[in-house]
């Protein structure tokens, strides 16, 4: 047990996973350079260039190769350097990896893990910060994991590598190094598909994932000081959705606010709202609120903080929800 950042926790998980000979790592600049965020640092030195593979600059090539490797018995972990570059590999993600199992009637499957740093707030050029997980949630066959803490990052990554289905593992780059916590040194897994109730509460529910989990804890605490009890749910996995946890919470609190860093329209917040309005509408005393990015491409650095959800926008939403009885 020791204090680790998310980068350290992931790096450690990779070292431990690679003890299995069938695990290989591939991507742009992952080997010699150890990744542009140093997440894969040291792995090539330990496991060699045949298992930690610098690839040519071609995302479709990376994912397509990983799919083929997985069909032939390996468990490849592919890195997409920044999540906005996944569009280049869209077909291999959505029409190939996700469909290998049913297409081959179960003879083959594609147990790949696609790791990628994503998300807002570190003043990157465009297409480095987009949160486009919803695109993949509309494409059944893939699981999408988005941890918000070092503990979960390590445990979920090890679970993803063991998982028999393709997993998109999204790493919150804005909190890569800023969040630290005690993380076991040995290997362990956290179950994919289970949300975590970060803070139990009774007056309203906030559902979120990724970096907002961190700052929303303060928002929730503030409310607590004022006698308002907010339940904070960290989805951790956005596909498949842990709808039972969400519905149970809403049945209790009667008020729902969804917070995410993606574009609003057709974000995963839309699906959550739709499911709740289908399954628990009679529990609600007010509208379902979404505090999200705006309906534009993720913007340039100087305005990203205005674009992202923030405590003040969340409080406005919650305050309104609390007016309903």
């Amino acid at each position: 047990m020791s204090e680790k950042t998310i980068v350290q926790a992931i790096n450690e998980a990779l070292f431990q996973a690679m003890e299995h000979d069938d695990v290989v790592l591939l991507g742009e600049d992952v080997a010699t350079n150890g990744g542009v965020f140093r997440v894969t640092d040291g792995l090539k030195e330990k496991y060699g260039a045949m298992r930690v593979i610098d690839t040519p600059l071609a995302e479709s090539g990376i994912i397509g190769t990983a799919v083929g490797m997985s069909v032939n018995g390996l468990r490849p972990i592919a890195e997409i350097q920044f999540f906005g570059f996944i569009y280049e590999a869209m077909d291999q993600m959505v029409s190939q990896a996700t469909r290998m199992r049913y297409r081959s009637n179960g003879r083959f499957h594609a147990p790949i893990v696609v790791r990628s740093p994503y998300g807002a707030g570190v003043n990157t050029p465009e297409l480095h910060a987009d949160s486009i997980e919803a695109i993949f949630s509309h494409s059944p066959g893939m699981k999408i994991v988005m941890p918000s803490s070092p503990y979960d990052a390590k445990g979920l990554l090890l679970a993803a590598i063991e998982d028999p289905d393709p997993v998109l593992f999204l790493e919150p780059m804005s909190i890569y190094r800023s969040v630290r916590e005690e993380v076991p040194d040995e290997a362990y897994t956290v179950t994919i598909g289970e949300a975590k109730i970060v803070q139990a509460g009774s007056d309203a529910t906030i559902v979120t994932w990724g970096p907002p989990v961190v700052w929303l804890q303060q928002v929730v605490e503030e409310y607590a000081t004022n006698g308002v009890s907010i339940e904070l749910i960290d989805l951790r996995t956005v596909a498949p959705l842990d709808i039972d946890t969400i519905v149970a919470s809403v049945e209790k609190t009667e008020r729902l606010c969804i917070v995410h860093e993606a574009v609003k329209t057709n974000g995963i917040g839309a699906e959550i709202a739709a499911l709740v309005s289908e399954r628990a509408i009679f529990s609600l005393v007010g509208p379902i609120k979404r505090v999200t990015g705006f309906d534009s491409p993720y913007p340039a650095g100087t305005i990203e903080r205005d674009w992202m959800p923030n405590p003040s926008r969340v409080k406005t939403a919650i305050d309104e929800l609390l007016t309903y009885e």
Partner: protein
Amino acid sequence: MDMTKWLDEQGNLLGDVTLPSDELLTTMYAEMKRGRMIDTKMFKMQRQGRMALVAPVSGQEAIQVASALVLNKEDWMAPSYRDSVATMLHGMPLENIIRYFKGYSDGGGAPEGVNVLPVQIIIAAQMLHAVGVAFASKIKGDSARTITFFGDGATSQGDFHEALNFAAVYKLPVVFVCQNNQYAISTPVRKQMNTDTIVERAKAYNMAYEYVDGNDVLACYDVMKRAYDKAQNGPVFVEAVTYRLGPHTTSDDPKKYREQIEEEQWQQKDPLVRMRAFLTARGLWDEAFERAIEERASAEIEEAVAKIEETPPPTLADMLEKVYATPPTLIQEQIDGLRGNA
């Protein structure tokens, strides 16, 4: 560019070569003929409304038979939608092929031990899978090789380029077989690219290559054997010049884009006719042999069709169970709903 050719259009041997055994020679012909019969039958069944859509192979049997014959059982095949002659010969049951083109969701599943990837609809996507499969072989240190098929049109896709580049950089044991059948649906090769041959592409990756008359099964076999051997040490690119005698699919009408005279010229080059002439001259073909192949193929087809007509297609619930290893809650609910135990 010199093209490897063993037979002229009349089936005469060109030059001094060491021939494969008589048995192999007759197998080549028998497999081409079998492929042609199955193709013709599936086409007819589609016209009768008994198949969804069929992509005919007729005309391209030589390169497909030759490719499959050089492989060992443990080798891998990553096909497109027009490669059923090759995949069957590598172990894919005829039943699966028919089920696939009937629109059954289980047709793509090769039996255990048959290393054939499911039919690929997305042009060139399978080439990257072949690269990955071959890379895994190399990493694991086994000696399996991977062969992938694609068309002339596929050469324009980004995935084609990325696959060739990866294979060249990592020196992977993969054979890229381009069946240049002159058209991508209606688009002729000269509008697809600015070069006279497709092997030009291979050179750009410093990759070994072969250029072969794809309607000459002896030349194809020669080239594929060489390619297979070389592939142990790195990728090989094969361009097989051929022609699809039929339409692109059962939905296509080639009259919109091909001249009848061109079709007739290529009919003269039919790989079956040519090989039959060659075998006849060597005393390896007679009417009885032909009848025997035909009867065997007919029986095989009838048996497969009968079996299929006994086995209903998978249901939607069956298919939903194959999306994930274990269906997540929301999908399980949908399955339960369909199975009436919601």
